[in-house]
């Protein structure tokens, strides 16, 4: 079966002034459809760079990155933007909602850039908000919502385009543990519904919600293994 993500010998080098920084030295990962993967690593491990590459926010310096069988390394900015728009649903630690727009508009945003008609996108955005059980908060602005609700808006926004992967960067990092559990439960549900989820975190407890953990250190894959004692949402955190 063709993997959603096929990364082979990817290298990423930044030039900071005169110094070359090898953020990714040699990374190879394959992720299949409907996997639930956690990428772990301490800060400076290259975890964020890997996430940026997977999220098509950045392109590798060398190596192969195929997304749904298409080589991303060759793409220009506009093509990358299109992939991000259609196939990747981002969930950020700091939610990253537009502060001046209500929840509905925030969820509609990716659909605006995909060129969907106003009436259609409203229906789709309402559906997505229903999916995260926020239909009654549709016209609230982010500052009128709790942290957990904000993150659920962000998840609805990630879901609304029916993406190939949901890429969540420390999604519980700014939430209290009880709310964090709720959010992880939501990810679990999304996975059960057939979504492919990639979680980037440095917290062991969070990572153990996933089926598979990839540990990154010094720009290399340190360990790639299936989780045997998965944390089930709602049970001990």
């Amino acid at each position: 079966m063709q993997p959603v993500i096929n990364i082979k010998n990817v290298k990423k080098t930044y030039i900071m002034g005169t110094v070359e920084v090898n953020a990714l030295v040699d990374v190879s990962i394959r992720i299949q459809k409907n996997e639930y993967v956690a990428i772990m690593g301490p800060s400076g491990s290259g975890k964020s760079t890997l996430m940026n590459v997977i999220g098509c926010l950045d392109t590798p310096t060398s190596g192969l990155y195929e997304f749904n069988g298409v080589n991303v390394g060759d793409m220009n900015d506009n093509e990358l933007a299109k992939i991000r728009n259609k196939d990747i649903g981002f969930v950020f630690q700091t939610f990253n909602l537009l502060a001046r727009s209500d929840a509905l508009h925030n969820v509609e945003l990716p659909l605006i850039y995909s060129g969907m008609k106003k009436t259609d996108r409203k229906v789709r955005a309402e559906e997505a908000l229903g999916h995260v059980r926020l239909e009654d908060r549709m016209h609230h602005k982010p500052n009128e919502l709790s942290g957990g609700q904000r993150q659920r808006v962000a998840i609805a926004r990630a879901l609304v385009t029916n993406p190939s992967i949901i890429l969540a960067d420390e999604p519980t990092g700014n939430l209290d543990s009880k709310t964090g559990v709720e959010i992880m439960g939501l990810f679990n549900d999304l996975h059960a519904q057939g979504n492919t989820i990639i979680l980037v975190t440095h917290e062991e407890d969070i990572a153990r919600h996933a089926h598979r953990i990839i540990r990154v250190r010094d720009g290399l894959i340190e360990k790639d293994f299936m989780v045997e004692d998965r944390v089930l949402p709602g049970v001990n955190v």
Partner: protein
Amino acid sequence: MQLQESVGMALNAIRVNKLRSVLTLLGIGVGVFSIIGVMTAMGVLQNAIENGVSDLGANTFQIQKFPIGNFNDNSRWRLRNRKNITYEQADMFYDRMKLAKFVGLEVWEFGKVVEYKKIKTNPSVQVAGESIDGLATNNWNVEDGRSFTNQEVQSAANVIVIGSDVVKKLFPIGNPIGELIRVDGRQYKVIGTLVNKGGMLGGTQGNLVVMPITTHMNTYGKERSVNIMVTARDQKTYNDVLEFSRGVLRVIRQVPPGEPDDFEFFSNETIIAQFNDTTFMIKIGAVGIACIALLAAGIGIMNIMLVSVTERTKEIGIRKALGATKYNVLSQFLTESVVFSQIGGVIGIITGSIMGNIVSLLLDAPPVYPWNNSVAILQTPFLDFTALQMNITALIFCSFIGIVFGVYPAWKAANLDPIEALRFE
């Protein structure tokens, strides 16, 4: 799909930063205001003048010794030896101009006092001396009583027709016909009154008295140049009459063949053209000032847009992560700066039109509405602009300013690195 979104965002940005936005809008607004204000005021003046000169009557032209308006030193030197058009010459002209419908001869005195019993006017009454056709060529109509007869002109009778303002002042009640009034101390019998036609340029067309030209010359002196007014029978014969009268007057004044005329023709058209010549430089000046103001305003817009891009770096990062292309971001910020300049432009047009039309209230002249599309208020050698065309041009120019000064900030926003932008706090 993007435009509506972008316009909405632009309006939102303006709402959120009220003071900053108002100051920027003011810049554009003042620029547009200055040009629209001046143009509208000039348009009103032009309306007033066109209305005024058309009071001369249709198909009428005048002949005078000197051209109207300023002539330069060179022509002043050339013209200063011109001899007066004497009453005898003018009368001869009258006898020979059978082709014309009317030929009126007139002379003027200004700033006189008219008295009736104990009541006096201000020393501002105009005293016209007219030949028998003079009232017709001036388009003056008698309201009550009658005009003077040929015989009264011949005999320089002390009879007088008075304008409506004078009637109002001296005869607030009662009938002036047959009463004796004094002009400059001399006594005249009122035989008629004139229909009020309203003032031109704030002047008072009713503030005059009219006596036979002969009486006028006996009283105020013969050493003056007579003003000849000729009315053609219709538009078709107008040019023929004009050329014929040129020939007749040259013969009477013994101008040798090949020499230029020693008199000047005026028509409604030449007076309007004269006005346009004088105001053209004012208009060009206004355009220049407006351009400088708009340049300054454009720099203001650029400044505010750069601040806005920096403030909204994070937002740009989010939008890019969600799939906004460079083009999406560029057009969003460009739309914002164009919306900015358009709002400023509309404010400028509204205030400028109001300001310009205050002139119309002061002068009691017809206003120039911003949507007027029939009267050209700016004539350039290439194109004439009506008020509507002016305003549309102003808005297009504002968009242009918005684009020119919005391009760099928008380009900067479009080229932000999404990763860096997302990290921005």
